């Protein structure tokens, strides 16, 4: 039962060019995660803007109100249905006619991701100091201009590390895409298990995920550090004086 390592490697990579299959799987997992992230960020940003605008107004415009309702529905649907089921529906119902794996995967995971990313962006927007928007408004900028020129750039920047983590999550989530016949890493492992008649491909499935996730985590850490450094505020110490009784 104890195969030599070289025999295992041979069966998994060399024999009939199986390394190409692995490459295909890695590429599919990464690119689906990437496009899903882009889609999720676009959806999430739009949702966050609508929700924050809606909540900031005492009496929102009817159109905004309707949009907000639709968004709430979308979020409850996405959160209520397991990702696996969503994937099957995209693959075998909505896009049943399509054989484009990248399209199916990106849409299924991206539309799911949007509901979660929206929350991150919303948090990013409301965590921008209120004084920022006030300064913008006091200069005469409109609400949309204040949003796009002042609040959103800061909110997005603060959310970037979270987007890196979302990419890692998505990358791992794609491991279920095999159920929709998408040739991602796990699916490649399953195909090879059928061909090698042993479980050794699972080892390599793990290795691929682990190495890629470690690299991604390293990159996210670098990004985080870089962002922290670039806006390290030299905070003016709060003045303590006799006026504190009056000036809070």
């Amino acid at each position, binding site marked *: 039962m104890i195969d030599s390592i070289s025999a295992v490697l041979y069966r998994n990579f060399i024999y009939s060019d199986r390394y190409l299959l692995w490459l295909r799987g890695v590429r599919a997992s990464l690119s689906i995660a990437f496009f899903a992230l882009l889609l999720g960020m676009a959806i999430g940003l739009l949702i966050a803007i609508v929700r924050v605008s809606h909540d900031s107004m005492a009496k929102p415009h009817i159109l905004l109100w309707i949009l907000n309702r639709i968004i709430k529905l979308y979020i409850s649907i996405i959160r209520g249905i397991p990702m696996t089921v969503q994937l099957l529906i995209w693959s075998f119902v909505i896009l049943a006619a399509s054989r484009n794996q990248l399209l199916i995967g990106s849409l299924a995971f991206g539309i799911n991701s949007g509901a979660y990313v929206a929350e991150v962006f919303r948090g990013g927007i409301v965590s921008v100091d209120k004084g920022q928007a006030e300064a913008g408004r006091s*200069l*005469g900028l409109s609400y949309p201009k204040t949003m796009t020129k002042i609040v959103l750039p800061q909110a997005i920047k603060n959310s970037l590390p979270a987007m890196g983590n979302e990419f890692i999550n998505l990358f791992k989530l794609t491991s279920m895409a095999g159920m929709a016949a998408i040739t991602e890493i796990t699916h490649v492992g399953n195909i090879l298990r059928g061909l090698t008649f042993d479980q050794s491909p699972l080892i390599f499935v793990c290795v691929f995920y682990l190495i890629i996730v470690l690299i991604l985590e390293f990159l996210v850490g670098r990004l985080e550090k870089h962002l922290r450094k670039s806006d390290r505020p030299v905070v003016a110490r709060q003045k303590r004086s006799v006026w504190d009784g009056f000036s809070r």
Partner: protein
Amino acid sequence: MINVKGLHKNFGYVEVLRGIDEEIAQGERVVIIGPSGSGKSTFLRCLNLLEFPTGGEIWFEGEEIASHNKGKKLNEHRQKMGMVFQHFNLFPHLTVEQNITLAPVTLKKAEKEAARTAARRLLERIGLDAWAEKYPATLSGGQKQRVAIVRALAMEPQVMLFDEPTSALDPEMVGEVLELIRELAAEGMTMVMVTHEMGFAREVGNRVLFMDEGIIVEQGEPEPFFSNPQSPRLQNFLAKVL
């Protein structure tokens, strides 16, 4: 120039401004003092409609503005009133120069190049032209506040509102900010300023208002105001802070 009539402001059930009548003429330098929570900031913020009054009228250059609670008119009004905040509120993602040019360029008040030239001139004036390309995080508190002041000036406002512009500063930086405000006063800028710097109020203000519990309790020229306060509440307040 500014005429406030029976101004009221409630936050929910809390009545923060309880009827303010006040007229501010062009070129006046009005200083507002009063205990914490008396409504000084709220009054100032009502003037440029960062807070919407719940009652009363605000007239600015012959136009009633309190009813412009949204849209173009509102933004136009705010362009005419520069505001300086206690915590500077510079935009951390923009350079010092971009902080200054953002509003004029976005609001098409100036072409990009003209706005940059104007910004450089303003920065030269406060001795910070070398910092134009730097980000606010690299400035000291006093420098930040001076940039915030010229950022407001870049819109060429007719009135400047200051809400405790030196309260968040280290003591050694208060002077440079007050000096800039003093210069603006000397140039004839109309200003309304909330401050705890009594010496400065006395020196630069031509009128001092004492607010307490949402009304103006007493007001007058600095000399009689500080040396001969009439109401017990002001006497009490001055006794504590002077």
